[in-house]
């Protein structure tokens, strides 16, 4: 295969990986009935956690754990405000994004850099070639010589699908998002399900931030997620809140962003800013094209009040 095509496909997978993890986390939260507008902030918190954890301890394992923890903390914040206090979920997510943007920037300079912008370099995770499969020509190097979190991002779709569709817990989770009163009537606590789902989803989304830092950039900078959380949000809608569809959408958005390689290779007279617009334009176009037929979880965005209280 042409090396330009290979580069393009490799870039597509690379760009789609953090989107995937963010979107998988978002599916869990949105299926339980909580809009995941905070994905951007959860991801940024995860990126910060990964960078700070790895930089301060020298261990990427601690970096990954701290990205999960930082993501979950943002999830906890969103859950408290949007579920416990039944605030508007959209605006809560945005407020959480602002809080994380400010806090990570502040802590980076104030605590790690002691007043200046520190230069953080973290080691990148090594690829883990899959024995046997990685030797397959073309496909082997493309799919089976990836760093660990990439495998995790793509294989997580299977257990997530099984969980949502086949497990009892997944059924209750979807009930909390479709009809919380029905979930309540069978003895589940929708508010609790939503809280747990938001935190768990945020933890997975935080891993998406770790991918950016530990597999791609090797450092942390202010607002480095740069709208990826919002693209993941669009991917969830395009993928109809199901893991495989969402994975396809993430790959398509990844391909749109990887287009800049084609523009370079073919020497097309298109400005780089127009090319950078492509994922957003594509997301908007796909949402607009399919918008009418999208059926959201019925009770998403609707605050649930415990019928026994208040």
């Amino acid at each position, binding site marked *: 295969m042409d090396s330009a095509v290979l580069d393009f496909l490799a870039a597509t997978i690379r760009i789609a990986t953090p989107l995937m993890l963010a979107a998988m986390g978002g599916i869990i939260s949105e299926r339980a009935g909580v809009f995941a507008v905070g994905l951007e902030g959860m991801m940024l918190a995860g990126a910060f956690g990964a960078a700070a954890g790895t930089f301060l301890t020298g261990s990427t394992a601690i970096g990954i754990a701290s990205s999960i923890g930082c993501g979950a903390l943002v999830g906890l914040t969103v859950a408290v405000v949007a579920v416990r206090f*039944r605030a508007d979920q959209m605006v809560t997510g945005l407020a959480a994004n602002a*809080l994380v943007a400010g806090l990570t920037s502040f802590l980076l300079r104030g605590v790690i850099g002691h007043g200046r912008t520190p230069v953080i370099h973290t080691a990148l995770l090594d690829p883990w070639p899959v024995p046997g499969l990685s030797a397959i020509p073309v496909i082997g190097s493309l799919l089976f010589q990836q760093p660990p979190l990439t495998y995790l991002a793509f294989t997580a779709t299977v257990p997530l699908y099984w969980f949502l569709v086949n497990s009892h817990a997944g059924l209750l989770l979807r009930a909390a998002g479709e009809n919380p009163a029905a979930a309540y009537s069978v003895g589940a606590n929708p508010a609790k399900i939503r809280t747990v789902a938001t935190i768990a989803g945020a933890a997975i989304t935080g891993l998406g931030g770790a991918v950016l830092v530990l597999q791609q950039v090797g450092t942390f900078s202010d607002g480095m997620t740069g709208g990826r959380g919002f693209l993941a949000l669009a991917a969830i809608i395009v993928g109809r809140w199901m893991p495989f569809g969402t994975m396809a959408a993430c790959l398509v958005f990844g391909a749109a962003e990887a287009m800049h390689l084609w523009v370079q290779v073919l020497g097309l007279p298109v400005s780089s800013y127009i090319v*950078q617009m492509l994922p957003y334009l594509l997301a908007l176009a796909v949402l607009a094209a399919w918008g009418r037929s999208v059926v959201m979880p019925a009770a998403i965005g609707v605050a649930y009040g415990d019928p026994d209280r208040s």
Partner: protein
Amino acid sequence: MSADIGQPARIRSPLLAVHPSTWRTIFAMAAGLGVTALLILSVGADPLTAYRTIALGAFGSLERVTYGLNRATPYILCGIGVSLCFRAKVINIGGEGQIAIGGLCATWVALTWPIANPAIAIGSAALGGIAGGMIWASLAGGIHLGRGVNEVLVTLLMNFIAVLLVAEALHSWIGEIGAGFPQSPMLTANYRLPKLIAGTDLHIGILFALVAAILANIVLWCTSLGFAWRIFGESRMAARYAGFSRGRLTIGVMALAGGLAGLAGAIEVMGIHYRLIEGFSKGFGFNAIAVALLAALKPWAVIPAGLFFGFLETGTQAMQRQIGVPSSLVIVIQGVTMLLVLAAMGGLRPKGGS
């Protein structure tokens, strides 16, 4: 807990007879300051010293005050639009993009037509900005209504597109040739906003913001349009029974917010930078949401809320210069305040609200 805050019927004590939303705001700001103090401590600085440098940086001299007023101008203008949209439960997050497009259109007008009369020149560039913001917002509203895409997502995605459009314009047709930076050529003197106080940086933009806030308050509370928006926000069903057009109300309130944001962009260009620069709109849209929420979605209250964040920003910038505490503290304060106000407001809403 704070689910009890702000339920007027339960407040009996005359001591607490202030409007509940005022308590809510005071509580949110106090908690914001508390969190801030912890963060300042965490970087090894003294919170009281930090607050003093913030206060001096905001109000220490006439120059600092004028700087803060200029800073607050776009926040107020944009915050008014957000508060009206949120009243109508149209979650328009597109402030940043609308400011960017407004600034671009105003610059285009200013660089295209050499109008000699300053009043006409400034007026036409401001109208250009307003029109740009309105069109951008209406486009978002159109996609939202026509194609059933959530307005939050549409406006968010369009923010990125708008900012990239401005960058593209600055790197091609509107950019200054030979400048090392992505910026447009300087505007001629007749396109620059006159100063309100001679010898300072304070331009007349703040007057636009004050007038807009008062007008918005009148529209919201004293006109049938404002009434329709409020009904529309309280209950989509009631608005439909009353025969209000969902499309007209949504597009209307978004276009109005877009126009105000576009005006803010035009004012930034004509009053501060005297040219279009890359990234001039960064963060303004989100600040505007923080302002609107702190103002409890009351258009008149956007004035003090916008001033609060404007002065807070100039103050924290001084703090960063003088004692090295990062000025991103201001974003943390905004985030914390927003979350607290949201939590307090959330408890007020009827169960299972729309």
